[in-house]
């Protein structure tokens, strides 16, 4: 487990260093993600090592957003005056992005003649 954590941190570290060295607009952790993916593809045993720790971490992904979210206390004034506009923009653009993204995915997938094995059991049982 410690080895897996170390590997995650090292990938992130290398990602941060590359992003800064090359002046890339990409965040270090995203480059770290790409790096780890390449490691998995090149040397599959690494995957088995990292998998349990990574999945444990991802299971509680929601928790990790809480501290940044509490930052809302510093913006109460702004949200009072601009809250309506900001909230409308957030709601509408998020709905639009989900709808358009999903429709484009389904549409292009159909165009490609993609016989979908993922239609299992229908999506309405949630």
């Amino acid at each position, binding site marked *: 487990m410690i080895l897996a954590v170390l590997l*995650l941190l090292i990938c*992130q570290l290398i*990602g941060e260093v590359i992003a800064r060295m090359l002046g890339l*607009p*990409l965040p270090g*952790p*995203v480059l*770290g*993600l790409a790096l780890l993916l390449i490691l*998995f*593809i090149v040397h599959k045993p690494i*995957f088995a090592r*990292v*998998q349990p720790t*990574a999945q444990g*971490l*991802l299971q509680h*992904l*929601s*928790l*990790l*957003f*809480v*501290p*940044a*979210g*509490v*930052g*809302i*206390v*510093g*913006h109460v004034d*702004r949200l009072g005056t*601009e809250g*309506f*506009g*900001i909230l409308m*923009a*957030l*709601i*509408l*653009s*998020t709905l639009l*992005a*989900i*709808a*358009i*993204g*999903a*429709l*484009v*995915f*389904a549409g292009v*997938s159909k165009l*490609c003649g*993609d016989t*979908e094995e*993922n239609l299992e059991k229908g*999506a*309405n049982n949630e």
Partner: protein
Amino acid sequence: MSDFLEIWSYLAENQLLWLSGTLAAYVLADKLFRTAGRTPYLNPVLISVLILACLLWLTDTSFPVYFEGAQFIHFMLGPATVALAVPLFINFARVRKSLLPILAALFAGSLTAIISAVGIAWALGISGESLLSLAPKSATAPVAMGISDSIGGSPTLTAVLVLLTGVIGAVAATPLLNLLRIKDWRARGFATGVAAHGIGTARAFQVNDTAGAFAAVGMGLNALLTALLVPLLIALML
């Protein structure tokens, strides 16, 4: 009473208090979420934030003091982003098979999220720092905060907007996609991950494993694309 005050002033200076507080709020929120049958309206992130915001207000604690303790949890966002390589790798073959729909939906979803957010807010009279802080809101928090900073927005405001976006996406995705009659779990998950990052992805995993994996792919790819598109679009739009 003076004993209590003494203990409190010790705790208030200590990182342990708000680290425990954050975990406790989350455990409570998660419990509430589960007992309510996992209804997305009781999103555990949103409930935890509300509990903690009330506690900070009641105890007259400033955000920087809170963050001293909570930063240990916040720190894990980086390694967790790297850990997304695991669901990506598990689904690598399927992702490669769906490469065309993925790329098309990625561009469509990412552009829609950025342009419509900035456009709608601008039409409703939002300007300046708030408008800039909105642009990267569909990307995952650490990425969006970095982008916001580099284009002249407020990173902490962006963090809040990212969180709200995630909660909106998590709440709306299932009813919206049912309404649109989209049954392909890949399409449902991917679009949710692109539009609503980690919180949407966490939601997608609750609904279906395939949806979750494709949401993780969407979130990862959109982090990359948003970082590239936002500076470009902001230069064009403003």
